[in-house]
């Protein structure tokens, strides 16, 4: 499998009244053709910011992508793209679905026109052709009665329908990468499953690579190929779905896993909840950012940042517990068994 997107040392800062907030601190990863990569973490861990940075949707001067960052799309440097190329890149090569379908559609424009807009822009086709295409796309995302719905305004549709329209907009030009930022968070549970199934089906058909941003591990389990767990603007652990769910090595990942309810098991035990809050990203981080909340925190954790340890082809983790001198601790799995 070849890499379609390669990110190296991505750093993003926000300039606020209180100072520079370093929201993303040196994130590296690559995305392969046709796979689904999930970013998982608490709110404010930098996953959405990373996703937006990939499309250069962050607004300067408030948000700033640091110069040492590198984003390569098919070996092409995204951060140095000219205005024209960037517009083509957005929408035609890479597209994005946002969290809240209630606010992500223009309320005064019909759904059809919002889909047609992308088509006309990137495919250079006429209005009538674009309309035909838009109806086909609506069919693709399984909106009943597409000939009628194409003239509907967003507020006339339900939340699930609107998210389908969002997906239709994103997939209208068959992009190579689809970034889905919490696509199901704002929806009912039953609708969530439908939307995820739809995404899966479309991915199989169109061979799109998907970056899925979520805080819901349940969503990830069924859908993603690989997972990266983010904390305080860094990737702290990454691996295949199996590796993260069954052989995770980072205490933060354990905490995330144990806060997911599992039916039929240990019903009497209280659901785990992690104490404390993530660190303020205005402060410089010289030690492990998770140390203050970590059950296994050691003295070294409060002094130095851990390096990434490679465990397998895919599985890598940043934690001092991997150091040969560190004590053996009882893992989450051993405790559960």
């Amino acid at each position, binding site marked *: 499998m070849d890499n379609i997107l390669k990110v190296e040392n991505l750093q993003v800062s926000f300039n606020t009244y209180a100072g520079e907030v370093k929201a993303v601190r040196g994130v590296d990863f690559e995305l392969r053709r046709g796979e689904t990569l999930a970013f998982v973490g608490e709110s404010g861990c930098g996953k959405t910011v990373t996703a937006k940075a990939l499309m250069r949707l962050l607004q300067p001067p408030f948000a700033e992508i640091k110069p040492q960052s590198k984003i390569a799309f098919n070996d092409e440097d995204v951060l140095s793209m000219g205005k024209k190329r960037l*517009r083509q890149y957005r929408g035609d090569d890479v597209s994005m679905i946002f969290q809240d379908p209630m606010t992500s559609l223009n309320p005064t424009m019909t759904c059809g026109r919002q889909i047609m*807009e992308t088509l006309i822009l990137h495919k250079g086709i006429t209005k009538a052709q674009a309309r035909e295409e838009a109806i086909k796309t609506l069919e693709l995302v399984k909106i009943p009665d597409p000939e009628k719905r194409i003239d509907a305004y967003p*507020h006339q549709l339900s939340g699930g329908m609107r998210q389908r329209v969002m997906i239709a907009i994103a997939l209208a030009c068959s992009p190579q990468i689809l970034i889905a930022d919490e696509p199901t968070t704002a929806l009912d549970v039953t609708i969530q499953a439908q939307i995820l199934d739809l995404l899966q089906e479309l991915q199989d058909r169109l061979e799109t690579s998907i970056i899925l941003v979520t805080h819901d591990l349940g969503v990830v389990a069924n859908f993603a190929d690989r997972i990266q767990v983010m904390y305080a603007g860094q990737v702290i652990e990454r691996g295949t779905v199996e590796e993260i769910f069954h052989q995770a090595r980072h205490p933060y990942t354990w905490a995330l896993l144990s806060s997911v309810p599992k039916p039929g098991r240990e019903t009497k035990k209280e659901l785990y909840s992690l104490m404390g809050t993530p660190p303020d990203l205005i402060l410089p981080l010289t030690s492990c950012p998770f140390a203050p909340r970590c059950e296994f925190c050691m003295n070294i954790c409060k002094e130095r940042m851990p390096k990434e340890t490679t465990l397998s082809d895919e599985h890598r983790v940043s934690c001092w517990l991997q150091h040969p001198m560190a004590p053996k601790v009882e893992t989450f799995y051993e405790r559960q068994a």
Partner: protein
Amino acid sequence: MAQYILKRISYMILTLLVVIAMTFFLMRSIPGDPLASLARALPEQTKANFYAKYGLDKPLFQQYLIYMKNLLKGDLGESVVYAGRSVSETIIQTSPVSAAVGGLALIVGLIVGISLGIVAALYKNSWPDYLVMFIAILGITIPVFVLASLFQYFFSVKLGWLPTSGWGKPQHMVLPVIVLCFGTIATYARYIKSSMLEVLGQDYILTARAKGLSEFQVITRHVMRNSMLPAITILAGRIVGIFTGAFVVERMFSIPGIGFYYISSINNNDYSMTLGTTVFYAALFVVMQLIVDFVYMLVDPRIRLAGD
């Protein structure tokens, strides 16, 4: 939808009836009576005729009924100061003049105000923004008559470019229109700026950018329409502002508009003229408000369908 319109129109008629009744009885509750100061010097017999002519010899409620009956026929009575001058006719003759000046000021004010608001929003926190906000603040902090005096002084007296006052030639319109449209410019520049900034922060603008639209396309296709629609709702207030501003401007530039006559009727104690003009203004505003609301309903898809 039709039911809603019907409801609104019936409320409008109710409002009008209340306003007319209120105006009528308030005017008649002036201590003494409205003709007292004018009739003081008249001999007894003439006085009685004078009162009879304006129907003031009958009981109050009967006067009201007569007034309403005449009103339906479009007859607002006769001026008590200038005998023989019909109030309705004065309104018919003078209102086109006011409408020309006011309408022009409204159009100019809207165009300039909206453009300035857009500029201020796009160049937020840089000098164009500060300049626009300075103009906007001038427009709301300086009374119209002070502004008019300044303009007359500089453009007419000092520079001699335009006539100080008068009516009939196109150049007579220039200064009054500029003075009148200042308020609209100020209100709209401020409103459009904040409304545009709000829309720019919406999620669907991010969607539009993610589609690959250029910043220009994002602004023209997605930002403009959404930020301009709510601006229609403050139009009714601006129309009122233009008319009340016209009271001052018409007097200062000697424009024979309805505002000019309204103010002089107040100063001359011209009871029937004041009453008639107030009723006319109130009716005009109530109707304007309704029209503005309907226009808003027609152009905003969310509201149109919420009414169904």
